[in-house]
């Protein structure tokens, strides 16, 4: 027997899917923003000469690198109310899970970029009498930034795809909306094919934007 593809019931419910897509973009954008902030702080802590700053940051990063993201989602959404009596709305719980997790990964991106700057650059700056803060701001970070772009974009794409886990908290992002459409249409093949295409369009446009930004940033070479 051959399967009869029929997208029309799915296409009829496009406002539901569009809603999901917008919510996916929203949650990803917020999580990237906070993730970058968390990542910057963690990276600077990990590069600190002081052990009592380095160590907790390393533990944080290792924890998130070595545990599955869905556990973080469950923890923020289901465990916090029980343990600390804090109830979070699904969006907040998902953003917290995503930004702490991606923060840990961004930290490694930033740290890698900073450490890839040759020793001579640090010495050249120090020899002029620059403080650590000055040499970071003027010499190391501007050069490291251009080397961070590719791994940063890579991590952000992982994050965008991980937003699908927010569906497990009943947050109405793309995958959750798809499940709703599915329960009404009983057309899982069509629904999830449509969802895959929507993710594809979203990520391909993001990578086009990223390439544009990269071309701008490395223009000096």
């Amino acid at each position, binding site marked *: 027997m051959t399967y009869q593809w029929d997208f029309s019931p799915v296409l009829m419910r496009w406002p539901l899917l569009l809603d999901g897509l917008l919510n996916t973009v929203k949650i990803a954008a917020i999580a990237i923003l906070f993730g970058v902030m968390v990542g910057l702080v963690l990276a600077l802590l990990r590069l600190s000469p002081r052990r009592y700053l380095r160590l907790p940051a390393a533990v944080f990063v290792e924890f998130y690198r070595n545990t599955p993201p869905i556990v973080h989602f469950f923890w923020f959404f289901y465990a916090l109310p029980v343990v600390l009596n804090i109830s979070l709305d699904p969006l907040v719980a998902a953003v917290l899970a995503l930004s702490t997790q991606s923060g840990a990964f961004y930290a490694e991106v930033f740290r890698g970029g900073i450490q890839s700057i040759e020793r001579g650059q640090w010495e050249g700056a120090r020899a002029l*009498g620059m*403080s650590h803060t*000055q040499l970071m701001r003027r010499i190391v970070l501007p050069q490291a930034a251009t080397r961070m772009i590719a791994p940063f974009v890579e991590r952000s794409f992982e994050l965008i795809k991980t937003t699908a886990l927010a569906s497990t908290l009943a947050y109405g992002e793309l995958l959750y909306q798809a499940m709703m459409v599915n329960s009404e249409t009983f057309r899982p093949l069509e629904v999830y094919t449509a969802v895959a295409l929507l993710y594809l369009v979203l990520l391909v446009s993001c990578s086009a934007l990223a390439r544009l930004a990269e071309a701008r940033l490395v223009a000096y070479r």
Partner: protein
Amino acid sequence: MQAEPLSMPESTLPPPILQVSGLHKWFGSLHVLRGIDFSVAAGERVAIIGGSGSGKSTFLRCLNFMEMPTAGRIALDGTPLGRAAAGRPDEVRYPEGELCQVRERVGMVFQQFNLFPHMTVLENAMEGLVTVKRMKKAEARERALRELDKVGLGGKTDVYPGRLSGGQQQRVAIARALAMEPEILLFDEPTSSLDPELVGEVLRVIRQLAEEGRTMLLVTHELGFAYHFATKVIFLADGVFHEVGTPDEVLKHPRQERTRAFLERFTEFSF
């Protein structure tokens, strides 16, 4: 904390700017500098020679704290730098602010130039003035241009270092250091990574600085240049000053067997 007086040999020269006493440097289990006493006064030009691994670069790099001394003290204008831990005179801590001040006054030119690739030639020469000395941009620009003119690169101000030859890059690095108006300039094998035909242009700039009477320390393999450049030559071997004297004494009439053997390896091919 007590500032212990530094015992230094009497000298007819003006009071030393920089004094080193009992300097030791360990890299892990490797004992690179084994007790060095040294001082440099205004107007002195010191050439430091020695085989590879003798510790000559390490010694130079300790003077502006590119390397931290393992033991010993360094004094600037008679004031010892850093603070010794209570009861442990060998454990000296150096606050960052103090290190920055020393480095502002003791400039360095590296073997690998270490120019900032994301800045133009002019921005490289201005960077220390604007960021460290907090000078106004217009003023910094003027001074940077003056130094770039002096090293013969006044016409390359808007070029990025990646477009320059090694010799040109090193001259920019010299201008960058000069712009800070350091009291002492350290040169760490400034021509060692240059193609032979580019060595001359860099040495000419250094000779010009010598004629101006600047205080300089130079680690080099260019013995001929060292002879004409220096007021004092130090032969370093196994982490100690093996022989110290005028260029004539050390390079032409060495008293130590080891110095002679070292110099012979250099003269083998001269004709």
